[in-house]
């Protein structure tokens, strides 16, 4: 932030505090960070108290850095399933933070309290440290975040918990300059949890003064015993076929081990020794378990040079529509070679599923509705760049779709494949930084008239007819030059 205009910034901070700072107060803010590999889940609970009783808009502040890495954001009232509508304000680059307005279910009366839960998923926020590791070494990651959860409202008490999967922290930052907020130790570490705070009586912190004076980065360095996975590119093509009553899904997956880069070389002997003694190195991915939809068949797994025969699929029967079920087909997938730190592996995974499992027909407007999952979640992995192509049947018209969250771009093109004459409409959606929370469905509705269905048989019949007609004609034409000889 440029330091030339401190007064301007100060005034703008005051103005924003005046504009919204009066209506609420945070009685407590608890932030829980679940440290992971490439994905970090952050749950922040705001215990809010209404001061004026007129506003039902609560404003949340997120620092610019965090917002850049946040790929999923959801606000809820504690204990309720329904997420609250959020509206992000335009980013003001001079401030360095983003403001998100959350619309509460109803206006909160004066002095009434409410627990608001903000769930965010951060991606690409951890870094391996050291950046290289030998085949048998441990894997440790670093994660950095701001000490204080900033808020336009004053906060009575605030704490930040950082939880790792294994109780092995290598180091953490001890915050400085927090005497104003606490008399105890500013940070306590025990087992798998590090707690910053509690910090008391924090004023409205979305001010330049507070941020420059008190806000600071805290870094934790921790062991992580799962490989850090990243999917730099994912392309999913979903093809709907009414003739085959089939929904084919094909994923082109580029997998990258984003953990510490392998130092030295891979030794098969060491790897085999490790797996023999059941002490696999934490950053080596040798197998992956994926949850594919129930009722799938003809699953295939190949890469650029052919079929990979090292996978097992336990297919579950498809769940009837009126039943609520969460059955999955389990795919145990082994890459051709164990994926060590910094290594890549690209492959293609596909399967067929009965169309009736995910499609339905609306009698009232004569349209089909198909439910298409955006992605199959990879455990603990982030999909940096995703493209979803939904190919509708030939002749589909009135195409509409509804997205669970907005896509970066949406285009409609034409895709031509087997036995097509005019091609099929293809919807393309692009996404960035998808995580397990984004594994939701897109709903596509379209109309297909009967004549469009009959296009294919007609085309095939016409082609065969013309071939036979040509053959009949050719048999009956005499191209001999010397007709006399023929007569003899």
């Amino acid at each position: 932030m440029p330091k030339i205009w401190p007064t301007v910034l100060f005034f703008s901070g005051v103005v924003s505090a005046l504009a919204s700072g009066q209506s609420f107060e945070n009685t407590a803010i608890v932030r829980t960070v679940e440290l992971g590999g490439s994905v970090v889940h952050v749950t922040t609970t705001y215990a809010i108290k209404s001061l004026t009783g007129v506003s039902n808009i609560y404003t949340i502040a997120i620092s610019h850095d965090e917002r850049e890495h946040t790929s999923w954001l959801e606000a809820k009232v504690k204990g309720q399933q329904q997420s609250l509508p959020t509206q992000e304000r335009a980013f003001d680059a001079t401030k360095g933070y983003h403001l998100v307005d959350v619309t509460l279910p109803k206006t909160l009366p004066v002095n009434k309290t409410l627990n608001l839960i903000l769930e965010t998923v951060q991606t690409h926020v951890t870094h391996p440290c050291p950046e290289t590791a030998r085949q048998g070494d441990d894997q440790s990651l670093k994660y950095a975040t701001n000490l204080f959860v900033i808020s336009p409202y004053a906060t009575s008490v605030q704490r930040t918990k950082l939880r790792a999967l294994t109780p092995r922290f290598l180091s953490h930052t001890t915050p400085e300059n927090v005497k104003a907020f606490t008399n105890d130790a500013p940070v306590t570490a025990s087992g798998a949890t590090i707690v910053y705070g509690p910090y008391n009586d924090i004023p409205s912190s979305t001010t330049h003064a507070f941020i420059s004076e008190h806000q600071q980065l805290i870094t934790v360095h921790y062991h992580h015993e799962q490989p850090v996975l990243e999917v730099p590119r994912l392309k999913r093509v979903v093809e709907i076929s009414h003739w085959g009553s089939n929904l084919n899904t094909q994923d082109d997956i580029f997998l990258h081990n984003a953990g510490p880069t392998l130092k030295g070389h891979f030794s098969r002997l060491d790897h085999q020794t490790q797996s023999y003694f059941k002490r696999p190195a934490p950053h080596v991915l040798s197998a992956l378990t994926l949850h594919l939809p129930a009722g799938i068949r003809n699953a295939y797994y190949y890469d650029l040079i052919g079929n990979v025969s090292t996978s097992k699929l336990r297919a579950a029967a498809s769940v009837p529509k009126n039943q609520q079920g969460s059955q999955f087909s389990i795919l145990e997938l082994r890459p051709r070679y164990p994926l060590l730190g910094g290594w890549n592996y690209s492959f293609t995974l596909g399967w067929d599923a009965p169309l009736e499992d995910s499609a339905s027909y609306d009698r009232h407007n004569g349209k089909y509705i198909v439910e298409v999952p955006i992605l199959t979640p990879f455990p603990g992995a982030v999909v940096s760049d995703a493209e979803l192509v939904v190919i509708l049947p030939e002749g589909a018209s009135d195409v509409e779709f509804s997205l669970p969250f907005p896509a970066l771009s949406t285009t409609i093109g034409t895709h031509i494949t087997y036995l097509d004459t005019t091609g099929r409409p293809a919807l393309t959606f692009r996404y960035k930084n998808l995580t397990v929370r984004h594994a939701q469905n897109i709903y596509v509705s379209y109309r297909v008239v009967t004549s469009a269905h009959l296009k294919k048989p007609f085309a095939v019949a016409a082609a065969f007819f013309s071939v036979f007609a040509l053959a009949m004609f050719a048999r009956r034409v005499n191209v001999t030059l010397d007709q006399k000889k023929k007569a003899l």
Partner: protein
Amino acid sequence: MSTAYPLPTGLSPATVNNTASLLRIVALALISGAAIASRLFAVINFESIIHEFDPWFNYRATKVLASKGFYEFWNWFDPTAWYPLGRVVGGTVYPGLMATSGVIYNILHALNLPVDIRNVCVLLAPGFSALTAWATYMFTKEMKDESAGLLAAAFIGIVPGYISRSVAGSYDNEAIAIFLLMFTFFCWIKALKQGSALFGTIAAVFYFYMVAAWGGYVFITNMIPLHALVLMLMGRFSHRLYVGYCSWYVVGTLASMQVPFVGFQPVSTSEHMGALGVFGLLQIVAFTQFVRSHLSSTQFRSLLNVGLFVVGIVGTAAFVGLTVKGTIAPWTGRFYSLWDTGYAKKYIPIIASVSEHQPTAWPAFFMDLQFLIFLFPAGVVMCFLELRDEHLFVIIYAALASYFAGVMVRLMLALTPVVCVASAVALSSLLDTYIDPTEPDVAEEQVPASTDTTTSPAQAVTTTSKKAKKAAAAGPPPASTPLTNLIAATSPVKKGSPPPPKGIFGIDARLVVVLNTLSMLFFFVFHCTWVTSNAYSSPSVVLASQNQDGSQHIIDDFREAYYWLRQNTPETAVVMSWWDYGYQIAGMADRPTLVDNNTWNNTHIATVGKAMSSSEEVAYPILRKHDVDYVLVIFGGLLGYSGDDINKFLWMVRIAQGVWPDEIQEPNYFTPQGEYRVDDRASQTMKESLMYKMSYYRFAELFGGQQATDRVRQQVLPKVGPTLDYLDEAFTSENWIVRIYQVRKEDPLGRDLKSANAFEKGKKRKRSKPQPRRRAVA
């Protein structure tokens, strides 16, 4: 006329003809189906994958053709092959195969059938085998008749000798070449029979296609002239021969010169001189015929003598002169090795090192041809009996191909079609004779009809299965078949005496022979299926073994390592391996290679051989000079995979020795007793060679103190394995079949890598080295 079994009456000849024609079409369609289906074992047992070595290059080239277009392919310079030399692919390849796949691919895509190019390549060979069956049918039809044609088509469709080269995935030149061979021969026979310039030109067009597709086109180039020459020598010169040969030769030669890889060879190398010579001879003979029709016989005789003398002298002198001058290239080594089987081993170890260039073992004939191998001579004898012009062709073809097949395993492929044709002629003559219902008109010797009732079901079977022939036989009464001629020729009865009644009486005599023949055919089918599924359907890229519960377990080490290279090394990383794996590395790992299966540069291959067979210190400068980043070796010791590099090692040594006889000597790699060993008793040179070290690096440690056994060579390795100073192990596949080593860069401090390594391991530098120097100074 009495018949052995009742025939339907009241059929018009048109009905019989139409039924026969329909049955023929159905039979051909079924044969095509069987030919295609029996080649799909590889796809069903494994997957739709390109097999072996050369097909990987063809596949890669086809991908370039399909994705970038024909002109790009034509001008393709591949800098990643033969690094750092590169390879002009467009000019050093027979493009027919790639062009065929490219055309099929583009047609399918134009019809909105977006088939993957890999599937086009994989299924090309089975598809063309169906066409081969048809071409063989047409060819054999010219030799005898349709029924023999159908038999020949069925034989060629499933005979293992041809399947071995044309299973799905075996995407090699031979896949389309055999069809082209048979069809060119058919057109040639047709042209010869009819004296038709049209068929001569069609033969030339298919000859051109063949030239563009396979180096074996030289077989046609010499077969047809030889046939023409023999016809002339037998005094069978005719204008039909003149028209057919000239139209084929002129058009075919001009067309074949359009293939860049062939270029001016048709007029400048010895292999093609025969065709040119016969062409010239034909002109002379035709001219002589013309002159003779205008001159008296004495004048003509003296003219002929003088003319022949002069032309002979001039022609031979010109040929010898041009060969000496170098305008006509002498026979290449590959051809010498056809005359002298020991030639290649002595002078061109690269050719001799290929297993398919070894002489054929005799069981291979039975394995590849089964009962056809003893029907084949019978068929050739039948050709002699009739000896029309086209039968001469089969005889010459049979004699030549039999010889070649004995010399080289891979030329079994050239023999197979003629074996099928000749056997079909023999077998169909046999069946014709024994299915023919006419009985000799000797009433008193007629067999009572009581056997009819007992054999009627069997008879029904035979009649339905051979309905085509029955229908054909039922139409026109069989006149003089080859078999009746044979009987006449071999009959002890002297001519002149009234011919006694001959033929077969009754149904039982017929059934014995027919059922025997049928059972032979059944066994043939079983044999073919078994051989195909067991011996010829393995992709060799993927190995199969069985789990303890009997399920198939795939050993996929090659692709594991190649894919690792492809995904985790820089795109410019140069990989050195023995040439066998060059095409596979280029195709699957997509990385530059030093040498590959093209083997055009012996010195380059010898360089790799030298690097592999010398010690680390000697090999390291070679590796660095060639920018080698990774060295790949195949090691089968853990799994018992016998086709590994240690077993090929002696060829590397021999080839390197051919270029550097002072530095590499084959005897050094044997024990003093002359054994080839890898255990404690291995020679010092062997133990220090890069290949040995890379193969056994850390191998003994795998056994954790137990005896480390090499399962291929059944030898126990020393407890302390070799160490490497100039290379690092970069990747080893799951079953240790592929081992990849990274070449170290020079030490940044300028030490040699050995001492740098020793320093890093904390070993003190040995004082012993400088001391002698000091002493010497003192």
